[in-house]
Each structure stands twice: as C-alpha cells, then as structure tokens.
C-alpha cells in the first residue's frame, strides 16, 4: 500500500459490469453491460455524490461495489471493512415480521461476538444516536413513519461500525421536512463516527448540500467528476450543464 492509499476507503479501477438475462437451464444467456470502465476513488472522511438520471447504472455500480455483483472487467479495492448500504425504498428495507429493535440487533447476532447484554447496550446506544424515540423501539415497520423507518435502517447499517456507507437515494421518497432531518442526521453521524459516504441521488440540490465531491454518470460512464464547487460552478460537459439547468 502506498502512502497515498492510506487516505482511501475505496478504489474502483476501470470497472465494467452487467446482467445476464434469459436462457433455458442455464444455457443461452445474454449478457448486457450496464456500467463501462468506471474509475474513481473515495477518500477517507468524504461524502462523494453520484448523480445521474434513472437507468444510467447508479444502482448497478452500488451493487458491484458491495460485492452483490461481480465486475466483468476491472477491480474493486476496499481499504475498510465491508461497507453497508442504506436504501431508497425504506419500506422493504425492514423485515415486516420483526421489530425495529430486532432489525438493529440482527447484524450483531450474525456477527456473534457479543453477549446479550453487550448487544442490548449497543442497540440502545445506536437507536438513541439516530434519534428514534424509545417508545418506538419495539414497533414493527408498519407502525413507523417513513422518517422513523429510515432512522432504523441507518441504525442497522451502522451497528457494526462500518467506516464506509453507500446510500442509494436515502431521502428521495421522504417529505421535504423529513428529508432535511435525515440529511442532517447523516452529516452528524459522519462526524461522530468517522464515516465516508457514497451518496447516490438524482437530486442535484441535495448533493450540493451534502457532498464534498461529485461524480456525474451518464449511460453507464462517469462523464465528469470534481469537487462540488468545481462541477456546479464550472461544468465541463454539456450533460452536466443540462442537469444543473433543469434542477435549478
């Protein structure tokens, strides 16, 4: 590891990935590449935005980084322990059969290194940290509001103390006032727990508010990247200019 790499949490080196479709008994599948030659790094402690319109491969990139899909070309290097993910569709992120408490404790049970007492202490600490009131600890997902569900999801993602989080449109489905609360919480958690984020969004204004650097993705390629100020004040690509103009 070079000196420079000590400051990185993630390196995505010329990665291409896609899906296999169709086929019968495993034969005759067709491969469709979705992301092409994607190359970027995430620095320690930064919030990196990833913007682009629907269908450009943002979620495919997230899945590939998380190891849920294999890159067909290139390499992904993690410098921290396994990253965790916060999803856009918070309705299906929590198991409807279990309580908020259970969902946050589950990663620790899977981990298996802590006894019941230690698990309880950690779950209570984390649920309090994300701002869920105690009376909702035992609630099932369908008794929670959208904002509360997303708080529980964040707690579950953070309970094993990862250093790198991929957030896929975590606030897009929320009302604007709740959105502001969750964004504030994400910022606060970054500072408190030394986190880095890859923040995926189609909302350029949210990205401007939250992120340090930004990647612009179009048709499966990164077409532009730089600090938020650079890209927003001086976009080089026409596509970026169109996006910025449209979201003013």
């Amino acid at each position: 590891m070079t000196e420079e790499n000590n400051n990185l949490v993630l390196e995505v080196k010329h990665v291409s990935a896609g899906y296999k479709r169709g086929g019968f008994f495993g034969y005759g599948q067709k491969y469709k590449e979705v992301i092409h030659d994607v190359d970027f790094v995430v620095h320690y402690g930064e919030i990196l935005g990833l913007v682009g319109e629907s269908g450009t491969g943002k979620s495919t990139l997230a899945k590939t980084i998380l190891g849920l899909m294999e890159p067909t070309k290139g390499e992904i290097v993690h410098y921290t322990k396994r990253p965790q993910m916060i999803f856009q569709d918070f309705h299906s992120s929590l198991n409807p059969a279990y309580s908020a408490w259970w969902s946050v404790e589950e990663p620790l049970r899977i981990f298996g290194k802590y006894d019941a007492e230690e698990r309880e202490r950690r779950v209570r600490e984390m649920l309090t940290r994300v701002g869920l009131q105690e009376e909702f600890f035992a609630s099932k997902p369908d008794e929670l509001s959208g904002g509360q569900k997303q708080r529980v999801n964040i707690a579950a993602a953070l309970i094993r103390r990862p250093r790198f989080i991929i957030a896929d449109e975590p606030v897009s489905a929320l009302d604007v006032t709740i959105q502001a609360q969750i964004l504030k919480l994400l910022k606060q958690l970054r500072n408190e727990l030394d986190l880095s984020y890859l923040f995926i969004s189609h909302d350029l204004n949210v990205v401007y508010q939250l992120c340090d650097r930004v990647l612009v993705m179009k048709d499966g390629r990164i077409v532009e990247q730089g600090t938020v100020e650079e890209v927003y004040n001086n976009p080089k690509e026409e596509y970026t200019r169109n996006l910025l103009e449209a979201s003013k």
Partner: protein
Amino acid sequence: MKKRMNGYLLAGLIITCTILVVALIGTFWTPYSPTAMQYGKFQAPTLAHLFGTDHFGRDIFSRVLKGTGTTLFIALLTVGIGAVVGTFIGAVTGYFGGVVDDVLMRFNDALTAFPSILLALLIISLLGPGKKYNVILALGIVFIPSFARVTRTAFASLRDTNYVTSARLMGAGNARILLVHLLPNVLRVLLPAFTIGFNNAVLAEASMSFLGIGVTPPDASLGYMLSEAQGMLKAGPWYAIFTGLTIVLLVFGVGLLGEGMQAAEKGVE
C-alpha cells in the same frame, strides 16, 4: 402487523375448536364401542343412540366421534407432509432459482398434470393398499406441488427485498436468511393455503375411502363411513346425514378460519 378479530375468524375458531374437542374426546372415550354390533340394526335416532344405529347394529354417534378423529388425523398429517416438503421445495427453488428451480418446477408441473385422485391411486397401488399410513403418504405426496408453488412464489418475491440484501451484506448465511428472515413472512401466505389444503385433504380422503382405497375396517374415517352409509340410504338415511353433516361442518369451519386469517392479515374488520 396487528391481527384484528373478525366475524369469519371468530366463527371459524368456534366451529373448528368444537370439532377438535369432539375428536379428542372420541379418541379416548365413546358412549358405546364404535365397532360392537349389538345395539339392534337400523334404529332411528333416539336418546340412547343419538344418531341411530347402522346395518350391523353399531352406534353411529360413537362411530362419528371416533371417525372425526381419524379423519382429522389423516388430514392434518397429509397437509403437514405437503406443507413441510412443499415449503422446502418452494424455498430451494424460489430462493436459489437457476437450474434446480427449472428441474424441480418442471417435475412439479408434471405432477400437477395428473388428476390428484388418480395420482394418489397410483401411489397407493405402489405402496400397497389398505393401510392408513399409506393413504396419508400418498395424499401427502399429492399435496406437495400446490404448497411448493405457493411458497416458491413467496420466496422468489421476497428474495430481492432490501432487508434480505442487507442481511446478506451483514454476512448472514443462506440458512439464516431462509429460516429467520424469510420463513416468518412466507408463513403469512402459507397459513391460508394450509386451511385450504386441509379441506382438500378431508375431501380427498373421503373420496378415496368412498372408492374403497382409503382406510379399511376396523379403522373408520368419515369418508369410509359415508361409503358404508351409501348402502343403507333407504333403510337408515340418518347414517349418511349425520356423517355428511359432520364433514360439511368441518370443512365449513376450517374454510371460515382461512377466510378470517386472510381478512385479519389485510386488516379488514
């Protein structure tokens, strides 16, 4: 999910529980011996013999008590086999997909293509007829495909939910995801399927016994008794009436129960 009481559920519970209690009593105690032939042939219902007696002079009330137990036993075990094996197949095919899914589900389709009674007949003739456990096994096998299909759909649709992805990211193994994360959610669709399957099992057992390939004396199931009653419809219609009513009540009660559970799931009053 809040389970709310509703009319269907309440009525279903009352009927089903009553029958369960009756069957339980019948297993251990009946007013007369259900097989003794000493109470006079073709007696109409009296206080002494509530449902009358049959062509051998047996007490029909005692036989119904005992027979309900046998029928319940057969139906429960049958559906049990179908549900457990079917859920296992559904889990494997729905969750993992791929070639296993293709092979098993085509086999499933082939099984479904046979009329179920015919299939059961075939299996029984292979296993050897006339034994209670062979009937259960045969019917159980017949019930596997429908449970497999229902649970496969459920597992497949839940496989890609975010909470499963999350669990996988946390390092949960397939066994844990299947048993702890998915099974409780699949049970919600399985319970109504279970009640429908139970009713089908009661009726299938009845038709098989009626055809003479089900249980054999001295065991008596409701279905077998119905086939006996057929021979004495004119001389003693009460045999057919009371046995038939018991089957109808049982199927009706369990049907209401399933209806009620589905309504409770949706939160309908």
